Structure formats: structure tokens, C-alpha cells
């Protein structure tokens, strides 16, 4: 790996990715796959996540940081080079973690929070458009649909990780080895295909 590949756009040795979604969407599992791929490649890695009450359908966020020696497990605002988000509203909510010009890798999925279900407030109808305006380097896909074509709609997160993967110095075979190791057998093939489909969309 080149020296450049080990530093973010400010030349710092700690790099960050934020993963956001709704409790129950598998955000923690995706963060764990990403973190293990980075460990396999030789980085120091820290992650952060929240368990308990927030998991009951609330907003959830996982953070993954890697580099030579990572200090804080939490990503400071403006330091994530990528935001992976499984839901549009949560994408908008967490844009502030992105470094100016950072990349959004999002799923075109809408999960209405209770105030919206109740008709009390409106879901931002132009969410996707606002995301692409506020973060021009965005790629928003129907991750669940792509995953379904690969055999399991629940592998949507793995599609998004695939899109992210060309941005990171971890080669394809190392990714697939980590997926083989961590994904349960019956979901394995769908996750492998979902990752590869995402990786192609991500430009590799």
C-alpha cells in the first residue's frame, strides 16, 4: 500500500467512515464487516456503536476509524470520508459527519419515523435531491433491490460496502475472505454477489 493510501485528504493518519440507518437494519453488522476487512489489511481499527433502547426502531449510527494508531472511537464532525446510509432521512441527518466534499453511499430506502407515520410531520419528499445537492459526490442506489437480485434483500448493506470498497486500500480477495469468515453460511453466496455488484457500481 502506498503512503498516500494511508492518509485522508488532509494527510492525517486516521481515516473515518460513518454508517447510519434505522435500528434493525443491520448497521452494526455492516460496520463489523468493514472493520474486520480493515484489520485483515493490517490497520489499527476502532469502531463505535450504540445498543439498547435506541435499537427499537430509532436512529442508529456506527463509526469505523482506521489508520496507524486510532485514538477516539467516535468520528469528529467533518472527518468521515464516506457516509454509508441505509435510509434517506438518516443520510440527511448525518451529512455533517462528512468531510466537505465527502462521499455519500446511500440506499434509496425510506423508513417513516413515527411522527411521519402519524401524519404529524412530512417526510422530506425531496430527500434524495437534497442529498445530492448538499453532497455532490453521492451515489444513491436501490440497495435492497440489487441485493434481492443477488438472492437476499437483507444483503443491502453489503451492496453499499461493495460501492465503498474501491475507495479503500483493501483488495477484493481480502474483502471476500472476511465476508466468507463472518457471514452465516446460508446468506453467504447472496452477500458475496451483493458485494461484487456494489463493487462494480463503485467503479471497480
Amino acid at each position, binding site marked *: 500500500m502506498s503512503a498516500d493510501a494511508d492518509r485522508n485528504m488532509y494527510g492525517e493518519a486516521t481515516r473515518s467512515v460513518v454508517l447510519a440507518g434505522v*435500528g434493525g437494519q443491520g448497521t452494526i453488522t455492516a460496520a463489523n464487516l468493514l472493520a474486520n476487512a480493515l484489520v485483515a489489511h493490517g490497520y489499527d481499527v476502532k469502531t463505535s456503536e450504540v445498543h439498547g433502547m435506541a435499537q427499537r426502531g430509532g436512529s442508529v449510527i456506527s463509526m469505523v476509524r482506521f489508520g496507524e494508531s486510532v485514538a477516539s472511537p467516535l468520528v469528529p464532525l467533518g472527518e468521515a470520508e464516506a457516509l454509508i446510509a441505509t435510509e434517506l432521512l438518516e443520510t440527511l441527518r448525518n451529512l455533517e459527519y462528512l468531510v466537505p466534499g465527502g462521499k455519500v453511499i446511500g440506499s434509496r430506502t425510506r423508513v417513516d419515523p413515527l411522527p411521519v*407515520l402519524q401524519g404529524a410531520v412530512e417526510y*422530506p419528499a425531496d430527500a434524495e435531491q437534497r442529498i445530492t445537492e448538499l453532497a455532490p459526490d453521492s451515489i444513491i442506489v436501490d440497495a435492497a433491490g440489487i441485493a434481492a437480485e443477488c438472492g437476499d434483500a437483507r444483503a443491502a448493506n453489503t451492496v453499499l460496502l461493495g460501492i465503498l470498497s474501491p475507495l479503500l486500500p483493501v483488495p477484493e480477495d481480502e474483502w471476500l475472505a472476511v465476508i466468507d469468515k463472518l457471514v452465516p453460511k446460508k446468506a453467504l453466496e447472496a452477500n458475496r454477489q451483493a458485494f461484487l455488484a456494489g463493487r462494480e457500481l463503485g467503479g471497480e
Partner: protein
Amino acid sequence: MAEKRLMTGNEAVALGAYHAGVTFASAYPGTPSTEILESFSKLEGVYAEWAPNEKVALEAAIGACLGGVRSLAAMKHVGLNVAADPWFTAPYIGVSGGLVLVDADDPEMHSSQNEQDNRYYAKAAKVPMLEPADSQEAYDLIREAYEMSERFDTIVMFRMTTRVCHSRGLVEAREPGMHVPVPYEKDEVKRVMIPGHARLRHPVMVDRLAEMEEFANEFPYQRREMGEGDAVVVTSGVAYQYAREAFPGVSILKLAMTNPLPRKLISEFCEQFKQVYVVEELEPYLEESVAALGLWPRGKESIPRTGELNVDNVRDAFPELAKGNPSRGHGAHVEGLPARPPILCAGCPHRGIMYSLARQKAIIAGDIGCYTLSVLPPLSAHDCQVCMGASITMGHGIEKALEIASGESEEEGFSSHRVVSVLGDSTFFHSGVTGLMEMAYNRGRFTVVILDNRTTAMTGFQDHPGTGTTLQKEPTITVDIEMLARSLGIENVRVVDPYDLEECLAALQEEMNRDAPSVVISRRACVLRDKTLERIPYEVIGEECNECGLCMRIACPALVKRGDEIKILADTCTGCSVCAQVCKREAIMKSRSES
């Protein structure tokens, strides 16, 4: 080099304890501590158990330690309030095998009712305390904790926080150690704390404090990081990580052992600098002691005393230290977005009974569990809640107060029907049983609703004395809540199905109007665990629906209102039928296409 593995702090502390030779562990689940025991229980050759509550867990661990093995009790911060009674006397009686209490504080209250700083518990009980700053330290320091426990003959506090418990980091494990059980020896002068014995023991603790402080001054995990400039930051726990990142190049005194505080070390190191800063989460625990040394630290006047710290707020507190890492702006902060609070799941069995309760014009004394989420509108089905088990006892007090206030004699009894206490099965076993005894014994006449979903749901489905299985999923007794309530003298005990609204409403009305105490058990397995459900979704029959919105009052995430149209999300609906029962026009029916 040994293989490094990515582990949460909770996993690391479990492995470290195992490698220290710990063979007994007891806990009550509570975020962020739950996975400590879950991880430990999977290791070979250990005994691990879910206790009914934290007091029981700690007492069992004290017993195991006196029995000669290294033992551990784990709990969240508020759990130590429950366990405070044994906690304060445990250091009097000392240890045989090493004994450590792993405490998990929750700054920011991600999943808690308060954000108390439990470091004061260590100080108040004269117990040595270690604070890991990441997973590797959780592993390393828990091993040190057992050495310290036996060396100083005391229980040790191992204080973690959410961002240590639930952060993953690389852990390099060392050669596992062994602990040979200490043969049991009777020593009642040391272990039976009648006043005459306790008066002998307390001075021992005071002397020990001085010895432990000497040890803390020399403890190799107290880290002096020499940087540049004339400022030094004193810190501990995960706050160290934020300070290290926010203030690159600044000197740091990073403490791992924070009770007793190494005053000599702090003085000698800090006196080299012009300005001392203290960076710590929650209370000014370190700062007060650093100030007492005459070091005039800067701290809580700038660092938040509530909520979590992070690199951003630490940097903003002392920008003069952050010259090497200035804030550079960030992506868009979007205002006015709909909030996404946690909610009861679709098909949650709490929904039907809480909806029925909300219709009763009752004062609802609530408790700690998923059902607390019913406080949020539109259910709005909680009036008060303070801690585990308090629903019944607070309800008792409210009922008595209403009687006093209204000037009624107890015999006439009138206002009792207005009070209902609500708590879950695990919470009932935790600390509701004594409350029920209070109600029965002191002639309360209100209604207690026990939401029996057959698990400890909020913390991730742990077993408890009512599930019939142990932590290891081995069969065991099942506490019979009906029989237990009857044995306490409560004659009116009944079971309802929370998916049957008519039954729930009738039972509540009848019991609340009764001039006698009653228990209503709302029994149905947590929808996330119930394998018997058919899960055929319901649908709204468009031509029958007049958009009255009654069904929306049950706050189900499967029901959505778009404009005037109400729909059921088939993927989310579990077919519990509660919305169909609420509908007065029979406009919600079981979906035919799916059946």
C-alpha cells in the same frame, strides 16, 4: 507477535477476566454492560449466571470469592445503586479469591434514566478503581485488577463507560493465567460485620488506602506522555482518547488507576507545566483532587459536565491546546428533519395492554423496559418512572397520598381505582416482588399490571427466573407469577392476552373498580422472539375506511397515514390484529392475498 483480534470492551474484559483465572461471574443485564457476561459465559470451564438483580449478583460474587475462586459481578451504573448495600461492606470483609465489580456508566444516557458518575462509589467505599480507555486496556487492566484485589485484600471497581464497552478495538491477548482456588477457612472476625468486628476492619481499610496510593504512584499503567509546550492534560478512561486526538503534541498524564489517586505522581508531573487541564466525562472527579493539590486546573468551566465528550467538544473547550488539530468545518447540518425516536415494534405485545390502560383515565406508575416507550404520544401511557421496580411502590405511595389528600378514611376507599402500576416480567423479578409485598401488606388496593413477555427484551432477550431456562439455555424452574402474587396475599390475580383488547379492557375496568389489590398479568411472548405467530399481515379496506384515525392512536410502525389515506405496511405488519380491534368500521381485515 500474537494475533490481534477486534473486540468490544465488553468482550475484552470478559476474555481478560477469563485469562486471569476467573471462574465465577454473575450479573443482571443492563446496557452498556450486558455483553460482558454473555461473552464470559461462552468461555470454557466457567460458571456464569443471570441473577435476578445486581444486589444478588454482587452478593453471589462475594460468596464465590469467599469460597475461594476469582469472581466477577457486572452491572450498569444504576445497577450499583441496587447493589450499594453489599458494595459498601464488601471491602470490610476482604477477599479470598480475587473479586472485581465491573461497572458500566452511560454518559449521554443512550439507554439509561440518569448519567450518574460511579467513580464516586469507589471513593466513598475506599475501593481501588481502574478505568480502561479502550479494549486493549480493558483486557490488560482486568488482569491487573485481580492481582490488586488479592494483594490488597479488597474488592476492586473496574469502571467502564459506553464508549469503552461498545467500541471495538484490537486486542492482543497474553498467555492465560491460572488461579488455584483458595481452600475455605473460617474467619468470622473478618467476615461477620457485627459492630465490634467492623470497628476492627474500618481502620484496616484506611491504612490500606495509603498503601494503595503508594501502589498507584508506581502503577505502570499510569502513563506520562511528554509533549511540547507548557500545558499538561490530566485525564482517564475514554476521555484520554478524545484529548489525545484533539490536542496533538500536548503533554498528557493518563491515569488508569483513579482511586486512590496517585497524588505524588500528579503533583510531580504537573509541576513541570505552567497550566494544568483536566479532561474527564461527567463530574469533576479528577479535577477536584487535582485542585486540592494546589495545581489550579482548568476543567469543568469549559468541558461539558453533562452528556458525552468527543473530539469536537473537547477541542472547543480548550482551543488554545488544539492548534495542531483545528476544526475545518464539515458537511451540511440539515435542520428541521423529523425525529426518529425508538418505538414499540410492530406486533409488540405491550401495545394492546398499554393502549387499553391509556383509555382508563388512570395514574400510571411505570417502570424500566421497552414498555417505557409508551410514554411517547400518541399512547402517552406513563405518568411517572424512576428506577427498576419503582412502579408498584410509587403507585402505592400515590394511592395513599390521594387518600390523605381527599380526606377519606382507608376503610371507605375510593381513589384506589385511579392508580395502576405497570412493569415487565424481568423488572418484576428484579425488584418488583418486594413492592408487591408492600402493596399487599400495607393494604394497597390498586392494580398492578405485569407485562410478561417471557424475556428481558430491551437488553437483548436474556433469560430470567420466569423463562424456565438458565443463561446456558439449560432447563430450570419457572417462577409462577400467579402463585407468587397469591402467596403474598393478593386474591385477585388474572391473566390476559394483550392481543385481545376486549379482554384487556374488561379486566382492567373490573380490577380497577375493585376495592382490593389486584394483579393483571398480560402474557404474550415478545414479538421478536415468538415463533408461534402466523404473521399474516392485515390490510385496510379502502372503501370501508373513513380515515377517522382511531387506529393511528396505537402508534404502530406498520400503520402509515399518507395524506388522508391510511395504509398498512405488509412487510412490517405481524398480524397482531390490535389495529383491527380498534377500528369501529371493520375496515381492517386479515390480508387474503397472503394467506
